[in-house]
Structures are given as C-alpha cells and as structure tokens.
C-alpha cells in the first residue's frame, strides 16, 4: 500500500495537487487539492458592475474571454438588458473560435504527450509514417520527405539537449503503446498545431480590438462597430478574413485532430474502461441562437442544457440554476452559519481559513480541510462538467449533429456508447465537440453576415447604460459553457455598485474536494480504479487528470530562476 502525491511545485504557491492511495497497482482512493488561494471576488465588491468583466477577464491566462462573457451576462441578467442579435453572434464567434483553439492546444500540447512517446518517434521510418498518415486522412503534409524532415528536426533538438516543451516527460514509460510511426506523425502534427493555433486566433485580434486581451466586451453588447463603409469596423473584408480562418480551423479538425484521436485510441482501448468517475453530468448549454440571455432562454441554445444522473442516457433532467450550492466542509474557508451545510452562490461567502501545512510537507490532512476549491453541488449531487458532459447531454437530448458525429466515432472504433464514461471517452468527446463547434462557427458567421446584409448594424443596447436607470437592488447570474465546462458568475448590485459577487468555475465542479457528505468531486471519483504501473512515474494519474483539462495553474506565473522541478512526485 503506497500513497502518491503529484504536485506542481513553484515554491511561491502551489496549484493542483493530487494525492492517491495505491494498493496492488491500483488507486483505491484519491484527493484533489488546489493549493493556491484566489478569492478574486473580494476585489470586485464596491466596484462599478459595468467594469466587472475587465477584472474577471484577468483571472485566467488561458480563458480570458470566458470570464468576460459570464460577467457581462450576469450584469445583463440582473439589469434585464437584452443585447442586439449582432452582439450575441459576435460573442458566439469569439467563444467558438476560443473553443477550437483551446481544445486543439489542449490535445496536442498537453494531453497528447500522455499517449505519445516523443523520443520513440526518432525510431520511426518516414515512409511507413507517410503510409500510416495517408491511410487515416487527406491531411496534406504527409509525405515521406516531410516526416524525414520532422524526424531530423526532432533529432537535432534531442542531441542538443533542448527538448524544449518535451523535456522531462515520462519517455520510455511502459504505458506508452504507440508504434514509432504513430509517434512521429503526432510530433509532426504537434508542430503544425502550434502554427495553426497561432494563425487561427487572429480572429480574436480582429473581433477583440486589441491583442492579447480582448477589449470589446460591453454590458449591453459589444464595443466593436459594424460599418461596411469603414476600415475601422466589422466590414465585408473582415468578415471574409474571418471566414477563411474559420474554414482553416474546420479543416484542421477534420484532417488532423479527429483522425489523430481515431488513430491513437485503438492502442489505448483499455482507457475506455478507466476514469469514468461520477456518472453524473451537467451542461449549462450555450451559443444563443437568437438574442436572448441564456439565463432566461435555456431552449434557444445550440448546445442544450440539462443534467444526466447515473450514466442514464434515457433521461435528460431540466436544470434549475438556483439548485446550485457550494460546500466548504473540506475547503480552507469558513461560513458564518457553519461549514456543514452548503450556501447558494447569491449567499456565498469567501472568508479564508487556511488550516493546511506550511510547505514543504509530505501529505495534506485529508480528513480535515485540504483545498482552496469549494465543493459545488447541483441539487445536492456531485456532477461532472466539460466536453463530455456537454456531448452526453446533447447526445441524450437528440441533438442531430452531435448524435451523428458521436455514432460515427463509436462506429469507427467498433465500440458502444458505454465507453464514453471514461478517460478515453472524455478525450474523444473533446475532439467531437471541436468538430461540431468548428462547423457551427461557420453557421454563426453566415447568420451574422446575413443580418448585417439586411441593414442591421446595431451592436449595443444602451437603454440601461446609465446607473440612474437601475433599480436600487438587482440580482442576476451569467451562465456560460467555457471550454472546461459550465461557468457561472453571480452578482448582486446595490446602490449602483457591486454588493456581492461569486464565481463558480468549471474546475471547481470537477476538481473540488469532498463535500459535507463525504462525496468527492469528479477528479477524485475518476482516479479510483486507475492502474499505476510505476509509482515513481505515475503517468496514469496525469492521463485521467489531463482528460478533464484542469484549470488550476491559472493566474500566477512567477518565474523560478533556479529551475526547480515543477512536479514533485512523492511516494511513501
């Protein structure tokens, strides 16, 4: 019986930390801890609600747009403001392109390295790699000479001792199963994905007004004008540039991302039976088809809203946002009313009470408080959020395109829908979602172009811009499907200022600690049963945790001059 801790150490503050009990080569119990205090909410109180999005956008370096959007939606819900259709569509385009870029980056630059052995790619035969690549996709860069060039580039990096982003992986681990040729193909696509995402995200520079942080969000709409006669506005030229980029995005997903997932999956089919976790899934749904705020128009969304319990795809339960509440029983916070019962976000409190050990320490006291994350629950139950939850809710709701793509992927792999409840299922769901949303982005652009063409250039509803037009008190919430899952912002406005603000982030749903009933979150549940071949190198933990695409290390990037290990693996 051994206990393992995986902890990215930065010495100034920690991030996501996993502790796992291993017995006979299998995880029997796991604890997920966020070791970094955030409490951003406290910064917002007393500020102008119209500025909240600007501050919340800074919470995270990857998901900049998601907090901005959830925040403006919360304020619009509180003040009963409906933005014009153009603004909703522009927001959808920003979000959809964020999804495609973020999922591609996650797969190729983080998660693929759990399955692809970079060093083994050096043994690949370029001609055999070309044959493999051509057999799975019409992706253009698939010639023997191309793969030979990639291999020699990689060779150069290895010989110079400069593996760069590939340094210090668990290369050579027995859990890597791909043949060298599949590894080389993946390395080649890794490099292409870097170039792709760099070009693709220019969409944000165009619609966001400024790079790298978007500046065009606005309560009531967007702060980017539409004017077909102006160079400094959304015009025909910009729309066609965006179309070219969106098409490139769709092509990359069709020709590289999906085929790569289908090529890698057969070597790891045992992971279709590992990492299933809670079996409860929640999706807020998103991508308004019309102008209404998703908070009040749950049926007018491209991806549907709903909850699934106990892996039962025959019933999608309706979702009531007011049934969300958060426990702090095992979190480093105190509730005034005591820590045994949860609080709804409108009544939420952010009062820190750090009771954890001072670093360096071996293990956390998981009997007591052990995380800076709260434990959100829906109607009292732990639920998983993210791509798998969204695709399952859409699939079970009969979303036509999602059903088509899911069935086609399952058919290609020769497996049934039950395999979706797994680490591999989560990874496949993210790829499926990327395809469906890359397609939808072009539909949204068509809708925007048609609406502009009809003469509607309106991007902002300023009817309630002036605080004097607001009621003395107002309350609202903004729901948004971020790439990592359902995100919600909850605001109370009093005397024209923010009186109370709470943010419930996706990785809190998935990565939170035990609740008041001793029930763990999605990470904790998913790790149970995971095999561990080598306790010193727990690659398998990373596979399942990465399949959720954790959002933990955000917000703090202090450079460590001394190059200390960022992951500390402790085994006792």
């Amino acid at each position, binding site marked *: 019986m051994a206990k393992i801790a995986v902890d990215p150490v930065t010495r100034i503050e920690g991030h996501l930390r996993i502790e796992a009990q291993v017995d006979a080569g299998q995880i029997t119990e796991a604890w997920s801890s966020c070791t970094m205090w955030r409490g951003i909410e406290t910064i917002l109180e007393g500020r102008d609600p119209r500025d909240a999005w600007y501050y919340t956008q800074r919470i*995270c370096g990857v998901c900049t747009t998601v907090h901005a959007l959830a925040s403006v939606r919360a304020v619009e819900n509180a003040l009963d403001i409906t933005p014009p259709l153009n603004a909703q569509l522009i927001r959808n385009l920003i979000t959809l392109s964020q999804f495609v870029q973020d999922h591609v*980056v996650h797969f190729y630059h983080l998660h693929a390295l759990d399955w692809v052995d970079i060093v083994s790619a050096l043994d690949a035969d370029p001609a055999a790699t070309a044959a493999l690549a051509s057999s799975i996709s019409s992706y253009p860069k698939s010639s023997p000479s191309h793969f030979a060039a990639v291999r020699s580039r990689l060779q150069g990096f290895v010989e110079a001792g400069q593996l*760069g982003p590939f340094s210090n992986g668990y290369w050579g681990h027995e859990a890597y199963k791909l043949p060298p040729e599949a590894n080389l193909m993946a390395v080649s696509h890794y490099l292409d994905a870097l170039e792709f995402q760099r070009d693709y995200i220019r969409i944000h520079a165009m619609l966001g007004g400024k790079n790298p942080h978007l500046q065009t969000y606005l309560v009531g709409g967007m702060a980017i004008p539409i004017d077909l006669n102006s160079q400094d506005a959304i015009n025909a030229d910009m729309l066609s540039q965006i179309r070219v980029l969106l098409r490139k995005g769709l092509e990359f997903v069709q020709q590289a991302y999906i085929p790569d997932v289908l090529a890698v999956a057969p070597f790891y089919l045992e992971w279709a039976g590992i990492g299933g976790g809670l079996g409860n899934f929640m999706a807020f749904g998103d991508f308004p088809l019309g102008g209404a705020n998703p908070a009040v128009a749950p049926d007018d969304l491209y991806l549907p809203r709903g909850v699934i319990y106990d892996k039962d795809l025959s019933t999608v339960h309706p979702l009531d946002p007011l049934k969300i509440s958060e426990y702090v029983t095992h979190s480093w916070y105190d509730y005034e009313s005591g820590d045994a019962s949860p609080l709804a976000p409108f009544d939420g409190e952010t009062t820190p009470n750090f009771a954890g050990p001072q670093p360096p320490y071996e293990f956390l006291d998981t009997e007591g408080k052990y995380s800076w994350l709260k434990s959100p629950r829906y109607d009292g139950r732990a639920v998983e959020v993210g791509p798998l939850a969204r695709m399952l809710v859409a699939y079970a709701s009969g979303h036509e395109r999602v059903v088509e793509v899911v069935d086609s992927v399952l058919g290609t792999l020769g497996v049934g829908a039950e395999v979706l409840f797994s680490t591999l299922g989560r990874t496949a769901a993210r790829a499926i979602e990327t395809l469906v949303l890359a397609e939808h982005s072009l539909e949204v652009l068509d809708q925007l172009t048609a609406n502009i063409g009809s003469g509607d250039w309106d991007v902002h509803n300023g009817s309630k811009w002036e605080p004097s037009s607001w009621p003395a008190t107002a309350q609202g919430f903004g729901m948004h499907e971020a790439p990592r899952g359902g995100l919600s912002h909850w605001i109370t406005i009093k005397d024209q200022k923010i009186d109370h603000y709470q943010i419930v982030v996706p990785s809190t749903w998935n990565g939170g600690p035990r609740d008041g009933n001793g029930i763990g979150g999605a990470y904790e549940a998913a790790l149970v049963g995971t095999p561990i071949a080598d306790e010193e190198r727990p690659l398998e933990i990373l596979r399942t945790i990465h399949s959720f695409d954790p959002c933990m290390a955000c917000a703090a990037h202090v450079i460590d001059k001394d190059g200390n290990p960022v992951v500390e693996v402790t085994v006792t």
Partner: protein
Amino acid sequence: MSDGRAPFAVLGLGNELFTDEGLGVQAAFEVGDALLDDVEILDGGTLGLALLPEIEGRTGLLVLDAMVAEGSSPGDIVVLGPEELVRPRMLLMSAHQVGIAETLGAASLLGTSPRLLAAVGMVPYSLETGYGLSPAALERLPGMVSEALAILERWKVEESVDA
C-alpha cells in the same frame, strides 16, 4: 520587419489581481513611457501560447516579470539571460502552466524564436489578492525599469537600428 512590427518587444507578464504578481505588466508600461523607437510594449498578462504570434519573428524579446531566486529577498532585481529564461519545466498538470519558458521553447521548435532574449524581474513583496502593486514594490520599480532600458539600449546599439 516585413510586417511592420517593431523589431524589439517588451513583454510584461503577471496577474494584476494579485498585487506584486502584476509588477511585470506595470514595469512594461513604464518602459513604454520612455517612448523608444523600434520597441513595442506588450501586456502579456498570464497568457501562454497565445503570446506566440507576439513573440515570433522579433529580433529581441525582453520579458519583465515577478521572479524568485535562491537566497534573494523581496525587492531584489534579477536579470536572466537566454539559458535561464528558456529552462523548461518538468511535467505540466495543466495547459495553464504553459508559461513563457514553454512558449519560447515552442518558438524555438518552430525556428522563430527571437535571437536576443533577456528577462528582468523583481522579487515580489506581496502576492495577496488585490489590484495594484504594494508600496514597497512601487518604490523599487524604477530600478527594474532602468535595468530594462539599459538592455534595450544595448541591443539597439548592437543591432544598429537606432541610426
């Protein structure tokens, strides 16, 4: 530069919601006040790979950030050369840990990394939640800014673009 961008970039990094975590961003704005030709000021926040297009193809990249070093005290100014700056981390738990070192590593894999690389940092006094720098860090900021300006001036002389 063929695309009309400045050959040198100053990239301020950090999170302004955690007091001195944001000192790199603040320092970058102050370097910007010197209005140097051929230098672009960038607010990188805590972005990772999204910074790739901003970094690629520059002659020189100067990173400003909060830093920690063995045996250092708050307020110390730390200057890093290219080797220290691109030292990669070990395993990443999250895409959110993709920081400047990994992004420079990616640029290097693509063959588009800036030729001149340096970083100037200050050891933070406070990482408490709050908007704006601690008074002590604000007081030390000019030292960091002049260190940054000296590096830029040296690069410009070496590259003779200030003619």
